């Protein structure tokens, strides 16, 4: 939109940008400041905004210490990484295999399936978790990484498939027709014709799957209570709910947990935006 730039509109715009940045990043910055404030400066009647002697001791403690809490914290990071990679490896091929026929092939029930898929997005995970919990206990899958990842995948499969469908829908029909005339199988056509032109959306979907897995809390809280599978989100929450008094450590624990998703958001913002905007259209 073109507009005349007056001094007033410029000041207004700058003020809006400042407010915007403070709102988006302020809480993160404050939490970071808390995480580098020594415990001694935190107690008492403090009304300053920045510590006199900032320290990275809390980060060192969580990342390098060999005491129980730090070990469990690092284990949580490892568990989340493993879960995220496994979700990607299984979830994305499944989503592609599911989205391709729903978008490009005609078969009985495809419209119904689309609507069921969309409707499933609205169903809370909790609606499935009580029977799953009982089932997992009886199958001895509680605290099992693969079992956990399968539930993660079902929780974001509808969204991922929808994202891919709305992209596949925009590709011209002629793309595949030539390949079919040459006698290619449907699977071959998908692999050789459709996937190569869809890599941005598949990449966006993969990023979203990574973020979603990394951010899971409610599912692992119930299905992965043991240290061997407990992800970082649950470990970080225990710093708060199990009434630790070390507030600096609590904040450092949160900040470290948000570094991987924050880096992804900054580096791959274009893909993510395409993913967010793409999934919300009919295609």
């Amino acid at each position, binding site marked *: *939109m073109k507009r005349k730039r007056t001094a007033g509109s410029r000041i207004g715009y700058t003020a809006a940008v400042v407010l*915007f940045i403070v709102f*988006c*990043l302020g*809480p*993160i910055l*404050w939490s970071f400041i*808390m995480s580098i404030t020594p415990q001694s400066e*935190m107690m008492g009647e*403090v*009304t*300053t*905004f920045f510590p006199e002697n900032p320290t990275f001791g809390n980060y060192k403690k969580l990342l390098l210490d060999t005491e129980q809490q730090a070990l469990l914290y690092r284990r949580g990071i490892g568990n989340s990484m493993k879960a995220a990679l496994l979700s990607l490896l299984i979830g994305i091929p*499944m989503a592609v*295999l*599911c989205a391709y*026929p729903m978008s490009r092939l005609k*078969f009985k029930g495809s419209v119904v*399936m689309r609507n069921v898929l*969309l409707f499933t*997005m*609205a*169903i*809370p*995970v*909790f*609606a*499935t978790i*009580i*029977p799953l919990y009982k089932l997992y206990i009886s199958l001895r899958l509680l605290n099992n990484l693969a079992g956990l990842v*399968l539930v993660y995948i*079902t929780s974001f*499969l509808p969204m991922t*498939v929808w994202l891919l469908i709305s992209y596949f829908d925009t590709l011209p*029909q002629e793309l595949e027709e030539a390949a*079919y005339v040459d006698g290619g*199988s*449907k699977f071959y056509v998908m692999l050789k014709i459709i996937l190569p032109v869809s890599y941005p959306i598949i990449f966006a979907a993969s990023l979203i799957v990574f973020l979603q897995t990394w*951010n899971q*809390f*409610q599912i692992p809280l*119930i299905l992965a209570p043991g240290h061997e599978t407990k992800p970082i*989100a649950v470990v970080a*929450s225990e*710093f*708060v*709910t199990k009434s630790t008094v070390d507030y600096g450590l609590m*904040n450092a*624990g*949160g900040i470290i947990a*948000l570094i991987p*998703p*924050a880096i992804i*958001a900054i580096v791959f*913002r274009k893909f*993510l*935006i395409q993913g*967010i*905007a793409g999934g919300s259209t*009919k295609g």
Partner: protein
Amino acid sequence: MKKRKNTPPYIMLAPSVVLMCGLVFYPILVTFTYSLQQMKLTEPQNDKIVGFKNYQMILADSNFWYSFLNSIIILVGVVILTVVIGIAFAMLLNVNTKIKGVLTAAAIIPWALPPIVNGVMWRWIFHPSYGFLNRLLLRCELIEEPVQWLSNRFSVILIVALVVAWRNIPFCAIVLLSALQGIPSHIYESAAIDGSSTGQMFRKITLPLLMPSLGIVVTSTSINAINVFDEIVSLSGYGDVSKTLMMDAYLRTFNFLDYGAGSAITYIIMIFAGILGLLYIRNLYREVNYL
């Protein structure tokens, strides 16, 4: 397309369909059967089918209505904050400047972070003794005593609404931004020729053309707001003050081990979520037509 054998689609769909049936659709039905039973882990000898007794018991329980009101306030708060701030952010991001990349990155970060950590961070904005807000207000001498933001029922749930909105605003802003960019500029140009003011253009052109996208944003934000759980845990723990329907379902099931009542509450939440889901589908299929 030529007629071909229809096996490939079904083979390709099979893994997803099997997984979704096994881990989503079947458990949902089982949850319903649980909700019709008396099923307490503390007294397994008394398990029996009781029909809709769990639902009757819940609807007669003042605890349920307490959580219900909290959930509704959070829902309304999240939707209003998300839409208002989301529109403002979308318009801000629609301005072409050199710092556009920085602004988009800043905008998208809250959406990408773990909700549980968002709650932890915001806790330190509102913490009575170590929080940023109280320090600021004390410094400016606007208050004399620290305000107990996180102990009062209504201030806690409004803070929860704010934090949930914080995570949903990026989605809202990006969807609306792509809708804004889809509005052909000639519409604004002819409106300008006709002598419309900026405010008029916003009300008469921008807002109506954003309506379909707003529908999507409002429904998907509402679905998120009904299901909020993580932020509540990190802002105020598993306590009773800030209890929502989802927290109520969790506590009844996993703290009091009453699977029957927990399942029944879950189904009550699902009815709300289901209505929102249907609205979501309707909004998604609505086309935008430009002149």
